[in-house]
């Protein structure tokens, strides 16, 4: 018990929580944006991998870190456009298209990586985002280490939560997006184009997902591995449900999952005699429990996964 307490009161745990949560925050916001407009985007895993590769590669080739993030977002936009073409324009199954994009994105990322990068004994690396030191805040006791010594993309992710919440709830664009996920026919009857809104939402959401992937290669680590996304995309898909499709709750869910994860990593090293696989499992088991407890009351966007065709009854 005291071991658990020690871990929880250690600022390094909380710093790790934010670090682990960052790609999830990007991913869950992206997935949420797509789903709020009525499109499930299971391409997330592949899009994150692609983002991880594209951003890293740009920096490896000499671009700045922020330019690298931009490249990653662009890669996400393109894969998002592909998903939108298949599901929104052609009205194909969102599941099948999404899984296809996951396979395609992951493989293409690795293929391009091997094509363009000489890999020796060690994978080549870049100089990633460094923790920012914020005057006045970073030197605070506990909080300074726990919260205010993160890399820039983490703060970007947190800011984007607020932006997403504002856009969705306070702007006409957000209303149009939500309405498209509820009843695209109502959107059309008011003179807007639900098809364009869906395409836009899927592209923007996919760009966010790609940023989540880019964080892995450009801040959390410094090189690219083909399997580095490791199911984080799928976690994001579950987190959207956990969050009842709300950005604020999505942040909460991402932090919670990250807490489980950071906690179990530390327990693994301090507690002996328990197979470490049990600890590895814990965050997922707990997530499922949380999902069961929270998500049953969730209000699903009514037109989620329903293709929209003009003039069809």
């Amino acid at each position: 018990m005291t071991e658990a307490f020690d871990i929880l009161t250690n600022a390094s745990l909380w710093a790790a929580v934010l670090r682990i949560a960052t790609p999830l925050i990007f991913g869950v916001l992206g997935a949420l944006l797509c789903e709020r407009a009525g499109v499930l985007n299971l391409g997330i895993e592949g899009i994150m991998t692609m983002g991880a590769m594209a951003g890293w590669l740009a920096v490896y080739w000499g671009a700045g870190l922020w330019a690298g993030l931009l490249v990653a977002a662009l890669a996400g936009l393109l894969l998002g456009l592909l998903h939108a073409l298949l599901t929104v324009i052609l009205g194909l199954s969102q599941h099948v298209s999404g899984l296809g994009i996951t396979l395609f994105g992951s493989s293409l990322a690795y293929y391009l990586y091997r094509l363009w990068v000489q890999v020796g004994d060690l994978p080549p690396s870049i100089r990633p985002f460094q923790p920012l030191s914020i005057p006045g805040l970073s030197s605070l006791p506990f909080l300074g280490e726990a919260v205010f010594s993160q890399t820039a993309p983490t703060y970007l992710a947190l800011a984007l939560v607020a932006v997403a919440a504002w856009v969705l709830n306070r702007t006409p664009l957000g209303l149009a997006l939500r309405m498209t996920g509820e009843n695209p026919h109502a959107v059309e009857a008011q003179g807007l184009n639900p098809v364009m809104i869906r395409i836009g939402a899927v592209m923007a959401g996919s760009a966010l997902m790609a940023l989540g992937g880019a964080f892995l290669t450009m801040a959390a680590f410094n090189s690219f591995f083909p399997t580095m996304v490791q199911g984080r995309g799928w976690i994001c898909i579950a987190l959207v449900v956990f969050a009842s499709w709300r950005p604020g709750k999505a942040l909460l869910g991402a932090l919670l999952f990250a807490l489980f994860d950071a906690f179990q990593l530390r327990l693994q090293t301090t507690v002996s005699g328990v197979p470490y696989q049990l600890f590895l499992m814990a965050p997922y088991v707990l997530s499922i429990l949380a999902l069961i407890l929270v998500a049953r009351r969730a209000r699903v966007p009514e037109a989620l996964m329903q293709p929209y065709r003009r003039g069809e009854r």
Partner: protein
Amino acid sequence: MTDPILELTGITRRFGPLLANDDISLHLQKGEILALLGENGAGKTTLMNILFGHYAADAGEVRVNGRALPAGQPRAAIAAGVGMVHQHFTLAGNLTVTDNIVIGSESLWRIDSRRKEAKARIRALSQTFGLPVDPDARVGDLSVGERQRVEILKALYRDASILILDEPTAVLAAPEAEQLFRILRGMTAGGLSIIFISHKLHEVMAASDRVTVLRAGRVVAERRTSETSPADLAELMVGRSVTRPKRAAHALGAPVVVARGLSVGEGQGKTLTEVDFEVHQGEILGIVGVSGNGQAVLGQMLSGLARPSAGVLTLEGRDITRLTPREAVRLGMGRVPEDRHAEGTVGDLAVWENAVLERLHEPAFAARGFVRRSAARTHAADLIDRFDIRGAGPDTRTRLVGRQHAKADSGPEPGCPPALSAGQPADPRSGRRRHRRRSCRVAGRACRGRRDPDDFGRPGRGGRPVGPHPGHRQGPSFGAGDGGEGRCPDAGADDGRGLGGA
């Protein structure tokens, strides 16, 4: 005559082989209420969808105030002052009234939506036009009548000068419908021009200045309302003279369906308290009530989809209180559910598939795990023929059979079911429904229920709440002042006042 505010010329539209609109021209004057009258499938909705820009016409032109509207752009129609209240509401149930009304009215790129001003304006409009609704309510929590008000407010909020209402009374109880027409009258006094679509003659007579009659995609007549009569319109609408079908007098047989003290517990508005009734052989029992008073559960009980918490239901003496849907089918309890789209038929399946769906356990239609397609098709073709299901073949996708689901759905019963229950069979979504049941004379119409136990338990009224003597169709219980004189029987049936004779 002054220039019309709205003019349609030569509108033509095909859906595959079907000519839904055939060279239609009509016009609307300022401050006028024009009724667009026609049977189901006449092409009324299609025409209005073209006017509003949901569809593009294959040929023809729409002019508002003399200026042509670009085809297929609702945005342009709205900007020109056209507002449309759709037959199937276009609302998002999870969002608020304000959300539903303001969407599309502001530039999408504003940083902040002007909610306060919007709400104030919605309140003002509600006040001016007598359309009370709470701007903060979730649309999903509103009654159908309130939702319709939201639809109308949507149009008014966009400064509509021409308002189109597609079968606005389909979802309303009679007093609500009357009130709606009073409100529409008030709007025309304020300068609006209105087209309302209907196939109910009495409301066309009561509420319009002029009538344009559509039949099979063509304009067949145009009349001033003051210079026509319901009988005249009925004939124009169906294309032949209509006589009121007579029910041959016949004696009532023994009780077939008997309900005693049926109750359904509280919860989700499903309430029935000690409902008693009997349906005799050869009888049509009408059950009236504003929707939401338990008719739906009663209908479900009669088909095994719901169980009473107390009471007994018998069919020809057998206790069927704990009926399962499968048994209901086997015992021949026919049922036309209230919401055919959701419960009765599967829209994406062919008519033949729907026709045998509930009889797949019978060797006639399935053997060794395989469906006997040819037998099923023959059966479906036979039903189509016998029950006059128009525009359909066995292989037509059911959703395209127009609003004649009710027939397709009641079709499956072979020969002569001992009992048929129909929830709102003649509401406009099911359209004209002619009861060619031949020798099948027994039909219990399941839509009754009250909250007040006294009302049902009172001796003297027995289980039969209304009606001069058994076996006769009930008069209107909350009628729109239509005593039945000069009324077209089909349209009469459409008024939701009970079945129009068997």
